[in-house]
């Protein structure tokens, strides 16, 4: 099953948000590092293009789930780091629960004959 056939934004609205939040569980990261982390988390199944990553980051920040600050990157350059807020943590919880419900429902539906 290849997910990459679809544009990530079109695929299951909200999945990208969920993955970004998940990627930030252990601390702050800058944009490209988030993409990299998502790839790692999904064992390379999701390759997040900057074209969808950055708009998602900005709108999540505006929703109050992420906060950002300017810091220094690993190669000593000025970069924008994102971290999860309390609201973001709550959002992660709800989205995780939603996802579990949906995925178990779909799994059950596919099992049925």
């Amino acid at each position, binding site marked *: 099953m290849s997910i990459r056939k679809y544009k990530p934004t079109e695929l299951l609205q909200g999945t990208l948000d969920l993955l970004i939040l998940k990627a930030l569980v252990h601390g702050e990261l800058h944009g490209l590092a988030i993409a990299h982390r998502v790839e790692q988390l999904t064992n390379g199944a999701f390759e997040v293009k900057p074209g969808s990553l950055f708009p998602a980051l900005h709108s999540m920040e*505006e929703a109050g789930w992420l906060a950002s600050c300017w810091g220094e*990157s690993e190669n000593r350059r000025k970069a*924008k780091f994102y971290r999860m807020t309390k609201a973001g943590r709550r959002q992660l919880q709800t989205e995780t629960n939603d996802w579990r419900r949906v995925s178990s429902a779909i799994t059950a539906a596919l099992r049925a004959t």
Partner: protein
Amino acid sequence: MSVLHRIIAGCRNLFRKSDVEQELSDELSYAFDALVEKEMGQGLSEAEARRRAGIDLGGVEQLKENIREARAGYHIDVLIQDVRFSLRMLWKSSGFTLVAVLTMAVGIGATTAIFSVVDATLLRPLPYSHPEQLVSIQSDLPEISAHDVGMSQPEWHDLQQSGIFEFVSPTWFDENNLTGSSKPARVRLLIVAPNYFALLRTEPQLGRTFKPQYNSPGFIPEVVISDALWKRNFGGDPNILGKSVRMDTDQYQIVGVMPRGFDSPGRTPEERNIEVWAATSFYGPPLPDQPLRNRRNLPTAIARLKPGLTIAAAQSRLDALAVSLQKQFSADYPNGWRVLLQPLKDTVIGNVRQPLFLLFSAVGVVLLIGCVNVANLLLARASARGREMGIRQALGAPRGRLTRQLLTESLILSLLGGTAGLAIVFAAKEPLLRLIPETLPRLNDMSISWSVLFFALMVSIVSGVVFGLAPALHSGRLDLIHALNQEGWGSTGSGERARTRRALVIAEFALSLVLMIAAGLLLHSFWDLLNVRLGFNPQSVMSVRTRLPYPNNSSIDKYATAAQEAPFIRELLRRCKSLPGVEGVAIGDPAAIPLDQTQRDLNTLEGKLFITFEGQSSKPDAASLVERSRVTPEYFQLVGIPVLRGRLFNEFDTDAAPQAAVVNESFARSYWPDGDAIGKRFKSTRPDSPWITVVGVIANARTQSLAETDVPQLYLNVYQDSAKHLAIFLRGCLNTVAIPDLVREQVQAVDATLPVFGAQTLTQTLSDSLSQRRFSMEMITLFAATALLLAALGIYGVISYMVSERTHEIGIRLALGASRSNILGIVLGQGLGLATVGAGVGFVCSLIVSHLMASLLYGVRPTDPLTFAGVAFLFIGVALVACYLPARRAVRVDPMVALKYE
């Protein structure tokens, strides 16, 4: 939480745009650099690495735009951009903008002005608490087709006890002589039941109103006065309460002052602008102590329904009550009896609904024509801007965005127009209000209220969308290749666009023709009314009113009988005859003032009389309700109504002689169709009335209404049947400014307590009686003229555009030898073709509209050929002129220039 965050973020995006953009730029440039480094780390050249990084990001600028779109407030930001751009475009073509905004200003301003009238009169509820419970009560005697005959005291009592109403109050309009303040003044008095103010649930601004429980005989010795009277006659004295005033020689104490702006609910301006309210239980002096059931002397009544009762439910219970009362008192109801409830608001509004509806439709049509005109202008501009649109689309602007921007432009135009229109209405408010006839009920203040402002806003938005839609949709269908290939200013425009423009002009002409036909019919009616044969001569006649007191204690009444009043009348006639310029004098009651609409509309039962004829009817108790005036013998000669048979009143018709009557031709013909009226007798249905003998028949005259020719009229002699309300008629070469004061001196020389008021020339009275018709006619004509002007501008625009579009073709035609008159014919033919099709459509619509307004016409059929022909003639003339100007330009085309231009 999240919504709040987005709002805050949106504000930041909008107001600190440069910071946000800078951060975005920094963030992405880091990402770009990081990607480049990564690629270079894999051994690529810098140029190649940069290329790949760009591909990875999907283009830095495109990515930025994607991010912006995801942000809060993006749509507002786009709107601001659109508005800015539109304003710039509109500013650049300021001529077009000016014309469009002015057109919309006229349309929206006029519509808003008329709406504020409709809102105040028809839409807003009456300004009393729970107005939906308020009703007016009308009694009819259907068997003798007598309507609105009034109510008797016992009937009022029955309605009170019926359990249907919370309160019922008769209302009795009267004029009164107020002699408490500086000089005798005539005041408008409303005699009501003590529960009147409790019924309306209105509180006074000062003091109190009547105690609703009062039930003793006669008048409560207290009055409530209006704010206007308080300020005018008592200088707004704060210690007014408890002061006594004399009204008709009786003493009353002022107990309350009503608030400013409080009007009684009445049908006429007189009844609404009440100055004094007095209360009685409608029996006891001056009324009979034992009121009779069939003596219906209480002219009108209002009531408040019990809560929760609908008018229909109340009416059915009332019908049952009426039936049982008729059974119980069969002797008092020989000719049926029906009591009808009507929402009080309908009674107050009266018959203005239809003219107002007509006005509102007319102004709506003007607005629509305005919209069509602006749509036409926009289409012409869209052709000119075809290239611009093409370029913008080629550079990647989505079609939706272009349509959106064009709609923004038209909305801005209409909102600007609406604002300008409102400003005009605001500025011209006073003169506009003066145009509205007094007879239009306005219990509600006619102001620019919130609902009016809201209406103006809605109208602006809707018309903006209406006229913006056609050009905006056309832009969506723009053919890119075609648009970009065009030379110069895009020109020709698609054939489709030209078709739309022609259709719009046709619609415009059809609409304005309908308006012009309506205006033409009203004008023709009005003209006919002004030129009817009156049957009397109003020239150089003035009427001045006075009123004799009517004390509650009739034993102190100086003018109780005709014999007592006669010396006063004779003395007054003698004195007035000697006034400068006066050639003839007569005295009568107000019903004798020809065409005095304010008197006719007042429902006082004053000018009406129930009579029965001697030995004529098979049913002895069948009464007839007739119009009655009381006059002195000189009256007929003074107003110039000739006698046809018999004689007029003379000096022998005195109190001692048998009562004589003069009737008009129509009266004689309707009651004695096969015989001579002279010598026939009849009498009033009031108890102890004497027989009255017809002594003369006079010619019919339109003294009741200009529109009605043969209303039966009965004249009695003031010396035999006395009247308290008097009108002094003077004929001659009168100084209309000085006469009122001169007459006042003479009246008050005879009796110093009498007020003198209401001086008017008969021609003025006649003109006033037409005020509502004149208002409708003037407004509709104004709107029709505006519509025609707009339509002419529309056709002018289309034809000029066509000429400039075809300059090249005309040049070729001329070069090939076409004569100038050929060219003129082609251009004029095009314009006239459009006008003729529009006129055809308009004529069909006019036939429908004119039948709908048939009741507003007088003496003119809805298909009046003269009006239709006249309008058609004017119409074609205007179209010709509007087309001739551009046609002349076409003729002057120089073939050389036209061909080189290409």
